[in-house]
């Protein structure tokens, strides 16, 4: 049972990995991607539409990435180049995303008699590795997106801390004036990290529709984008912190699903388990001290002169 729970935790962590790790990259460059909830939602929708219309999850994932990048591009233009408030812009885009998805769902599919279904991504056991007792079930019996996460996270970690690109990103968030003097185009770099977060957030959203449920509703993200956003804070703007935080939330979500399936043991109401990840966020936010916030997080960079 515990192995089952942990295995499910890793599955449920997958979208949060994509969301929180890319949020870390964007925030280290100085931009909070507060449109993340809308990016997730549009990713979920794009993933569903692509898969349904072209019958192949690859197209779904591609469309999800494009949708995520599109939201991120609007967000980036308004917050970075027009220098408008990040929280406010994000909220506007999150509302717009709900209306947009509901509207174009109707444009494409009308009002279907029965809910539209797609085949969720299948589990691909990795030969040999999946045979290993315990570890095989935990790590190597997942769908493709989880494997992508395994590969991409170390790459992002390496990029952020051990390459000149990573240094440029981190200095844009810490001291944009100095970065500018060193010849880095701060705003362009920030815009690119936001687009990157859009792409990754799109995949994250697609996980819920294409990878997991095989359907789409406008309330299916239900604050998961915000949780990824919170994990970035709680993980202290570090990739490793985000990975640990993601796993904790994946576990919370797996536990919630498990407790609901056994009826809460009869004593605790289901709603408590639904609220559990959100309560956990509040508790961790309150407990967490000594953040090392990127010094220029959320502050638009205005070139002197």
């Amino acid at each position, binding site marked *: 049972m515990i192995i089952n729970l942990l295995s499910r935790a890793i599955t449920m962590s997958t979208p949060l990995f994509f969301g929180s790790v890319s949020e870390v990259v964007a925030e280290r460059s100085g931009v909070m991607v507060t449109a993340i909830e809308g990016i997730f939602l549009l990713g979920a929708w794009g993933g569903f539409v692509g898969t349904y219309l072209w019958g192949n999850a690859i197209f779904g994932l591609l469309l999800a990435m494009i949708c995520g990048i599109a939201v991120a591009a609007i967000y980036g233009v308004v917050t970075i180049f*027009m220098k408008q408030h990040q929280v406010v812009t994000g909220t506007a885009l999150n509302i717009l995303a709900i209306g947009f998805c509901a509207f174009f769902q109707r*444009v494409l599919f009308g009002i279907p008699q029965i809910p539209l279904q797609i085949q969720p991504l299948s589990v691909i056991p990795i030969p040999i590795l999946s045979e290993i007792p315990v570890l095989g079930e935990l790590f190597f019996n997942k769908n493709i997106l989880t494997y992508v996460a395994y590969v991409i996270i170390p790459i992002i970690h390496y990029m952020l801390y051990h390459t000149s690109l990573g240094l440029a990103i981190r200095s844009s968030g810490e001291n944009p004036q100095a970065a500018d003097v060193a010849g880095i185009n701060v705003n362009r770099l920030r815009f690119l990290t936001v687009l990157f977060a859009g792409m990754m957030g799109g995949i994250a959203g697609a996980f819920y529709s294409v990878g997991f449920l095989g359907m789409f509703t406008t309330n299916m993200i239900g604050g998961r984008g915000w949780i990824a956003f919170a994990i970035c804070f709680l993980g202290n703007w570090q990739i490793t912190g985000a990975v640990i935080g993601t796993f904790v939330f994946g576990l919370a979500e797996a536990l919630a699903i498990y407790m609901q399936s056994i009826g809460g043991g009869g004593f605790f109401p289901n709603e408590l388990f639904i609220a559990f990840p959100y309560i956990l966020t*509040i508790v961790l936010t309150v407990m967490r001290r000594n953040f090392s916030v990127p010094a220029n997080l959320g502050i638009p960079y205005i070139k002197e002169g």
Partner: protein
Amino acid sequence: MKRILNATWRDMVLTNFAAIVAGIVLSGALLLFLGIDPIFVFSTSIRAILTDGYTAADILLKATPLIMTALAFAFTYKANLFNIGAQGQFYMGAIAAIWLSLELQNRIPTALLLLIVLIGALAAGALIGGLIGFLKARFDSNEFLVSMMSSYVVLALMNYLLRTFLKETKGEYPQTDPIARSAWLPNLIKGTRLHYGFIISVLFAVLIWVLLYKTTLGFRIRAVGQNSRASALSGISPTKIYVIAFLISGALAGVAGFTEMNGVQHMLIQDFNPEMGAAGLGIAILANANPIGIIFASILYGALNVIGTQMGRIPGANVPSSIVSLMQGFVMLFVIMAYYARTKIASRREKNKRKREAALS
């Protein structure tokens, strides 16, 4: 000096107007995807509003709770704090309002009941808001995240209560019993749904304006918002201000729960009005967090809402309800862009002025 002030006013009106029109036109154009003639549905629904008092009054009805949630956001915004959890505080107010109404109805006179319910809803919202403010003041925890997450927790609490203690006597759906007529907020205009809640909301807006701009507390709140370190040095305790600002903010959102329960819905239903908090934020931004401006911006949002619903009622047109959030989202986005346009216009004006002065000398 006066000319510049007039010019900025004119910019504000013109750019915001352009943003609103652009948002509506763009959403209307999207209707073409559904093969709907946007000019026909817009003109039909606007005609319905102009000719039918019931529908016209619905605009103010829809604006009523929005004024409160927008005030809730604006109030903390003035202290440079973010209360993203107005939705949860609104739900909390609604829970308190419906529970108190069901307990007290037909036992005490209507006026007394409504007063108690108003205070109850206000206190319930203030409880959640105050908790967020306390966590911010005591533990310096990020109020943006905590308030955001609190909404989801309150939503779960509401669903729990609707399934258990507050469930209707028939026991069929997750909703409460309807409250008795004697516990309703009285009608403001006969033959419409508009109720006294609108007056209450407007009064609160005026009250908040006075509080912010005419009292020492308001001055302190705005001082903390402008520079918390400087105001701490001058003897204002920012932590105290955090708690007070969030208490009041939560209370305002809680009142919206009261006006919706006792004025409109008369019962608590699962998942009702899910966009109240986010729409309030949009309105506060549109009004530049000015309490009086919020009244008018809320009426605009109410109008968009009623136009959308009216379109949905046109027989054979099949306009989806998502047109409302499309319009609201686009308007909000363009209003944000209008801020940018204004700074551009202002800086160009400044440059021209300097050029003129240079040419003169």
